[in-house]
């Protein structure tokens, strides 16, 4: 690995992200931690503060986020108390795995390597055509009082790592810096245990994981345990899912909103399912069905990383698109707020074979008026996504939304499921 940085050369698999802090020897938790000691399972603090605000600062100014949910993540060199905290990491139920920007990481962290001891690179592409590329390293992830040990995460934009493969950058926009991403990272706490899953463990994997010897990166398969992990399912307790709680906001939105992520479902006195109803999601895609004006849309999902309700198209909703030259390009711009009701439905995850439905009332207001206001937290920001029903962050205001992780069980049944 010496070819990835002058100071990494003497450090074996240690990944020197910040040269001044590179320290050989103590950083490789895989060899020195002596096996992770399983914490005694007691009641731990499972409440992680989250906020919707104008985002991280860049050059002394907030970056200007709208409807983006953030939290502070603490990462540690595996098995040690050498840690750092990174604020304004996007809380994303539309992905799984922790991705942090290289420029924010001050720790010396061990690479995840393949059988030939080559580091592994990861490419993620999002539907807004942004991509992130960088090596996998292992950290302990601390959220509230919970610890997930030796979690593979992605370091996006690492300058001392192989360049992004062409298949990763093809047609895309890098989201490797604060300016490009608008956040200091992405905390994927979606329905799945891994970002990719069995497809990337197969013998013909998609171009997501790469083996990166000095000769260049080539796609490779990675076992499930080596992939990016939703850290929640790796907690010793409170690991069957999580809940996101945000208070309601008014029609004009709010300057900022403080809420909570609570880990575990029915594992402590503060995370019972209550009167919520659970709906299973598709085990491959995480999608379910939303019926709108009598038409069922099977490509429907709940995504806290979507900064709006992204639903259908102008013709189907009757909502005009905002002008492409406006600040709110990509959103809807009705002259007055429009109210709708849609029905979400899915199989009951308890195995009873019944279908569970929920009526969801929502409204969509003028995107330009909202975006150009001083507020950042809106329950009525929406835009087009033809054929798709994306319940984005506005869905979460005024609700408790449970995310049941795949193959994990609770009183509601077995994940993947949503309950609200």
């Amino acid at each position: 690995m010496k070819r990835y940085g002058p100071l990494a050369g003497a450090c074996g698999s240690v990944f020197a992200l910040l040269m001044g802090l590179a320290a050989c020897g103590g950083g490789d938790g895989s060899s020195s931690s002596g096996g992770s000691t399983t914490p005694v399972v007691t009641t731990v603090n499972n409440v992680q503060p989250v906020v919707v605000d104008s985002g991280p600062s860049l050059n002394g100014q907030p970056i200007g986020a709208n409807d983006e949910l953030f939290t502070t993540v603490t990462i540690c060199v595996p098995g040690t108390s050498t840690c750092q905290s990174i604020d304004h990491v996007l809380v994303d139920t539309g992905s799984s795995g922790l991705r942090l920007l290289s420029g924010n990481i001050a720790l010396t962290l061990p690479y995840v390597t393949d059988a030939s001891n080559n580091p592994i690179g990861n490419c993620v592409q999002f539907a807004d055509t942004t991509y992130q590329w960088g090596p996998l390293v292992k950290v302990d992830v601390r959220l509230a009082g919970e610890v997930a040990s030796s979690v593979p995460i992605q370091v996006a934009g690492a300058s001392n790592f192989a360049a992004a493969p062409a298949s990763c950058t093809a047609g895309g926009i890098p989201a490797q810096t604060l300016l490009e991403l608008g956040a200091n990272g992405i905390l994927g706490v979606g329905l799945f245990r891994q970002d990719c899953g069995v497809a990337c463990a197969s013998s013909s994997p998609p171009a997501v994981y790469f083996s990166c010897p000095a000769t260049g990166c080539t796609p490779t398969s990675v076992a499930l345990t080596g992939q990016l992990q939703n850290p929640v399912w790796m907690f010793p307790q409170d690991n069957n899912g999580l809940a996101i709680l945000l208070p309601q906001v008014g029609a004009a939105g709010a300057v900022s909103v403080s809420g909570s992520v609570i880990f575990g479902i029915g594992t402590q006195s503060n995370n019972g399912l209550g009167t919520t109803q659970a709906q299973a999601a598709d085990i491959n895609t995480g999608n379910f069905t939303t019926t709108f004006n009598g038409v069922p849309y099977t490509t429907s999902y709940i995504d806290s990383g979507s900064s709006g309700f992204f639903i259908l198209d102008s013709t189907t909703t009757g909502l005009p698109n905002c002008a492409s030259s406006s600040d709110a390009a990509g959103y809807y711009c009705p002259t007055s707020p429009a109210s709708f009701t849609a029905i979400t439905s899915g199989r009951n995850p308890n195995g009873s074979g019944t279908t569970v439905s929920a009526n969801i009332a929502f409204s969509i207001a003028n995107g330009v008026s909202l975006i150009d206001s001083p507020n950042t937290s809106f329950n009525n920001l929406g835009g087009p996504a033809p054929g798709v029903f994306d319940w984005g962050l506005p869905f979460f205001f005024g609700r408790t939304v449970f995310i049941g992780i795949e193959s994990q069980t609770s009183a509601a049944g077995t994940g993947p499921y949503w309950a609200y």
Partner: protein
Amino acid sequence: MRNGFALLAALAATALPGWAVLGGSAESVVTDQLKFQAKRTVVETQEYSLHVISLDDGTLIREYVTPGGKVFGVSWSGPTIPDLPQLLGSYNAEFQNAVHVKSGHRRTAGVHDSDLVVESSGHMRAFYGRAYLNSMLPSGVTQEIVK
């Protein structure tokens, strides 16, 4: 089901074409053949032909071809986003320019010009999108068929 599908695609992969470029000739599928191993089926209608291309990772590409042999629309769905420069050809630059100037929102991207329309959405493990050229829609065909 996924395993069976992958096996079928692998068996058919050796000599079958990839996909054509938006606005290009339907014959251009052959030039892409080496880049994307895929299996293809064709559905003929009176107004257009629909080529459905299955990649072995589960991605489905649909390309809509005029009676004159021009690709007027494409759509995609699958666990990863397909190679959009490959799909959109010379129109990819216009799409990317539009995406670059968008506001800060996440998870969708699109361009709606008088001629070119591109729309991208979805989330990890499930991505969707479509693109079409209004000027190339065959008579009697509306944009809604591109899905």
